[in-house]
């Protein structure tokens, strides 16, 4: 995959989004891969008794979607020299449609900085922060 050149991106350029459907099955698959079998993620009956009133996806699953967007946009520059700083704002739930977004905020030589986020189908921001490639 060709890498994105800094000269191809200007401040304000949007990264191609990644769109994913969250299901309980997918949350379970991520729990198995990550080893994080917290009942809040995989046990609907238990999760219904918590402040979240139902199961929620692992935050790191959403970061996997952001990483896919960054890999598609920047290739090995993200894989080998990527940086990320985010906050989890709200949970993703089974049935949600998650859309990632990225916007270039600075281009300085090889360094490209982006604002990034994940939203659900209601437009709620679930993850927000910054990412950079070197």
């Amino acid at each position, binding site marked *: 995959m060709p890498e994105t050149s800094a000269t191809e991106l200007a401040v304000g350029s949007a990264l191609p989004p990644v769109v994913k459907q969250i299901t309980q099955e997918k949350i379970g698959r991520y729990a198995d891969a990550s080893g994080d079998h*917290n009942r809040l993620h995989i046990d609907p009956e238990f999760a219904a008794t918590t402040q979240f009133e139902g199961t929620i996806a692992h*935050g790191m699953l959403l970061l996997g979607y952001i990483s896919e967007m960054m890999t598609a946009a920047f290739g090995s520059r993200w894989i080998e020299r990527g940086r990320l700083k985010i906050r989890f704002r709200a949970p993703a739930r089974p049935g949600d449609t998650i859309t990632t977004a990225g916007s270039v905020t600075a281009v300085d030589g090889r360094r490209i900085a982006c604002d990034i986020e994940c939203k659900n189908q209601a437009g709620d921001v679930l993850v927000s922060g910054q990412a950079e490639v070197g």
Partner: protein
Amino acid sequence: MTATLAAFGKGHEFPPISFELSEDWVAGYVAAVEDASIAAHSGVVPPMALATLAVRTLLDSAGLPAGAVHVGQELNFLRAAAVGESLAARATITSRGERAGWVLMGLELSIGDADGSPVMSGRATLTFPAEAAA
């Protein structure tokens, strides 16, 4: 019974955990996050898979307290990791404070290769009810 993170204070270092990025595990991770972009980088592990393993290191050493929420994440990818490579993950509690009945905990995460060279570094921020620490 494994202690939870609530039992540990600032400065606690969790035992390093070594792991192999086996073909099966990487394939399971890629399937779980449905990462279509990494296929263009043959033999390379998605960088967020490393972060997932760093978190797993924590969970192998200490469970999450009831009501724990992942608040934020910082990650620095320092080089690509290859399928089949052996790595070691470390985690240290670098901050712990309490406010309004909630504990806020910061953890430094790092992954190095067989030569001890860094592959990934990062910081996770978690919060959980102070009553979980009582």
